[in-house]
Each structure stands twice: as C-alpha cells, then as structure tokens.
C-alpha cells in the first residue's frame, strides 16, 4: 500500500514537473514567434481590443472604488497621528506600486484570462486547432503569440488607467473630507520625487507600476493559453480550463508580485519595490 502511495506521489510529481516545463516551453515559443514571420497583425489588434479595451469598464470601476476606500481607511488612521497631510503620498504610492498592478492583473485574469482559456479550449475540442495545423498554421503562432503580446501591451496600459482613476477616487474622498486638492497632489508628488528619478525624469516609484503589469500580462496570456490548449473531451474540460486559469493566474500574480518586489528592491532600492 505504501508503495502504491509512493508511486502515485512520484507520478504526480513527474506530471507537475512536465507541466511546468510545458508552460515555460509554450511561453518561450510564443515569445520567439513575436520576432519571426508570418506575424498575425490583425489578430494582435483584435486581441488588444478584446483583452485591453474590453477590460476598461472593470478597471475603471475597480480603480475608483479601490482608491476611494484606501483614502477613506487611511485618513482615519492618519488623523489619529495628525498626519492626514500624507494622505496623497500614501494613496499615490500604494496605487502606483501595488494596488493598481495587482488589481488590474486580477481583474484581467478573471475577465480576459478565462476568455482566452475558453476560446482556445473550445477551438481545441471542436478540432479547429487541428484544422489550423492542417492548413500549415502553427497554432501557437496564430493563437498564443497575439494574445501574449496583447496582454504585454494592454495590461500595463490598463494599469496606468487604474492608477489614475484610483488616485482620482482617493482625491474625491480627500477633498470631501476637507483636504485641499493641491495639498493631496503635492503630498503625492513629493513622495514620487523623494524616491528619485531614472534618466532624470522618470520616477523610480513608477518602475514597479510598469514592470509588474508586464509580468502579470505574460502570466495571464500564457496560463489561459496553456489550459485552453490542454482541454480535451467536451464542454466540461473547457469549463475546467477557465476555472484553472483564473485560480492559477491569480496565485501566480500574488506570488510574482512578492518576488518582483524583492527583485526591484535589490535593483532600485526600497522606494521602488513596495
């Protein structure tokens, strides 16, 4: 019986290792195809519209409420220490470095990541992917590469929108509680300036706000594509692929957030790693 358990554990470990290998192999091939012909420009534009522009409403709603609740809770804590003047600093830095990237990543993982898995999974079980191969099309080049590039471009773009809207939400709460808008904004900018600048003009505090969403975009596209391509059988497997995509992409986003924060701390100092 013990041997049976060991064998099962061994088999599971092998499957997991193979899965990790396949995941990274898929990512590498999809990235490599970005730099060779044929390149499916039309598919890239369609995916940028679907994955990015289509996610704007969820980004706007999530952003404004996140910024607002962050300002609301923080103002209570800061007022206890007579430090409400730092509200802009706290909201701005939190949104740009942490909340904006993570919430945008999670929102797009839920909406677009599951969509990628469902679309590719559905194509897999209806033999559309076999049909693509029959016509000499590499399905990774045709399906995964445009989605990967779309996510790499649109998740950072959506994060910038989320950051701006979140700061606007925080500003609304701050001004409604009597803080002048210019004090809020000056407090925020002074924190960015304190962190230093790259190339003389780009605040280092913005680096995580760009680097993290790019990584999250990659995770969302590859996870959705990986589980979509692995779908087999019927509609049930497509449902399972979408669920796994959302769960795995969300967990990876949180884990990657931590490791990237550590890495950026080493590269740019503590101010650029929050």
């Amino acid at each position, binding site marked *: 019986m013990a041997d049976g358990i060991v064998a099962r554990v061994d088999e599971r470990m092998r499957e997991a290792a193979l899965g990790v290998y396949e995941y990274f192999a898929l990512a590498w091939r999809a990235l490599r195809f970005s730099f060779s012909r044929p390149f499916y420009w039309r598919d890239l534009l369609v995916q940028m519209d679907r994955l990015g522009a289509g996610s704007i409403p969820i980004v706007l709603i999530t952003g404004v409420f996140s910024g607002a609740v962050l300002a609301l809770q923080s103002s209570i804590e800061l007022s206890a220490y007579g430090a409400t003047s730092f509200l802009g600093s706290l909201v701005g830095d939190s949104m740009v470095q942490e909340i904006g990237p993570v919430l945008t990543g999670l929102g797009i993982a839920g909406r677009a990541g599951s969509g990628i898995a469902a679309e590719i999974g*559905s*194509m897999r079980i*209806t*033999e*559309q992917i*076999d*049909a693509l*191969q*029959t*016509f*000499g*099309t*590499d399905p990774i080049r045709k399906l995964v590469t445009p989605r990967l590039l779309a996510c790499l471009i649109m998740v950072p773009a959506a994060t910038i929108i989320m950051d701006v809207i979140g700061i606007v939400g925080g500003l609304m709460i701050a001004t409604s509680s009597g803080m002048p808008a210019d004090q809020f904004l000056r407090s925020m900018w002074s924190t960015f300036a304190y962190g230093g600048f790259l190339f003389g003009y780009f605040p280092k505090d913005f680096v995580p706000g760009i680097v993290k969403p790019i990584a999250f975009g990659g995770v969302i596209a590859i996870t959705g594509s990986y589980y979509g391509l692995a779908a087999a059988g019927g509609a049930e497997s497509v449902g399972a692929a979408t669920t796994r995509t959302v769960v795995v992409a969300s967990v990876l986003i949180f884990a990657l957030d931590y490791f990237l924060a550590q890495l950026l701390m080493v590269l740019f100092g503590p101010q650029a790693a929050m």
Partner: protein
Amino acid sequence: MKDTGQYLEGIRTELGHAQAAERRNGGPPGATPRPLIELQHVYLAFDQPVLVDLSMAVYEGETLLVLGESGQGKSTILKLILRLLAPDAGTVSIFGHEITHLSFEEVLEFRRKIGMVFQNAALFDSLTVFDNVAYPLRENTDLSEREIARVVREKLEFVDLDPERDMAKLPAELSGGMRKRVGVARAIATDPEVILYDEPTAGLDPLAVQTITDLIKKLQREKGVTSVLVTHDLRAGFRVASRVNLLREGHIVFRGTPEEMVASNDPYVRAFLNAS
C-alpha cells in the same frame, strides 16, 4: 438489428454505385499500384494501445473506406497521415516521403497537398464562410485578394452553396449539412491531391447525407482526387468507396472491395455488416 437479407440487398444496391465509382477511377488499385499514402507496422498508444501493428496503403485515384467501431482509432489514422500525431513505432509515408520524423515546418510541404474534412466541419467560428474558405489560400498561396475571392466563389458553387447568399454568414448561422459543405469547400480550396474525410455524414439527416455523398462522388469524377473516408456509416461509405479496410482492435482485419466484404464469411465482418 435489421433483417440480414433486406440489409444485404440494400448494400448490393450501394455496391452498384461503388463499382461505377471504381470504373470512373480507372479500375481497381491493381491497375494503379503506386501508393500515395502508406502506413507500415504502426503502433500508437495513449493511455491504452490504439493502433497495433497497423499497415495500410492508399493508392492514387482510389477512395478508400476505413470502417470500424467507435473508438477503434479510425480518426487517429487520419491524424497520423496529416502528421498531427506521430506513431510510437512504425512509419508513415505520403507521396513517397517518410514523414514520421519530420518537424512541423518540414511536413508542411506535404500537408498542403492534403485536404481534410473534419467530423463537425471544424469551421473557424469567428470567421465568415468566405474567410473560412479563403483561409488556406491566404496561408499557403500568393494569390491576390481578388483572385482569392474568385476561387472562394468557385469552390462554394462547386459544393452547391450560393456565394451571394451564404459567404457573409458565420458558421453558427448554417445548418449541419451546410457546415459540412463549407468544410468541403475549404478542404478543396487549394486543389489538394488527397482529401481525408472524418465521419463526413455523422449527425446529418438522410437528405444531407445524400448531398455529401454526391459531393464526394463529384470530387472523384471531376477532380480525380484520392480520398480516404473514415466512417461507421456503411451505406454512405459503400456509395463512394472503391476499397474497404475494416479496423478492429488497432489493426486491419479485412481488406477488399465492398462486394468482397459483403460476400465475406468472416464472423466479425458478418457481425459488423449485420449490426451496421
């Protein structure tokens, strides 16, 4: 189960069509012995063995019918021919070239000479009928959009669809029979030498089955294509086939003409015919 005598009478009627098809193709395979496709001693397993020491050949100009119960690996044979799968052992050759160990890119040259009609048509559901049929032309030829439009119209007319009425439709707007016909139009868009049919009549009503089998015969007659037809629809298969291979437990248990199959005394062949 149908009455055996009545059933075999129906089969003999179908054979009249098969013999006519054979005559149109220039006689039995013995007259044209060059195999376009050859599988030799192929083994393939997933969780369970699927193909076990399978050997078969498809000759130029013929229509080979591959019969077998569900789950016997009929569709797997087509995927091996297209190199969508690779065998665990044995060799697969098409047009005289062994493709078993070729890479995806290397096999493309051969794959472009083969058209495939999928079981559920496998039309790209985000593309219109026009774009579906145009897809292989855009991928594999240097034709201008004007020339592509001309070819698409020609192929849609060949499968008895009205280009003006149908080519802007999405696959979801088509009936099962129309989807299959668009699948055939897409498969023949680049004028392939070989067409593979995977259960082309599955899920269709009798009139649609008739339309599809007529279309397969029209392709034989007018284009002279070599065909491999995988199905368990015996009646439809016998209408078009010049030769039959019967698959059981991963290998071929009967090879011959449709009339030889009907005349066979092999217990499994009899049981298969009577149960179909």
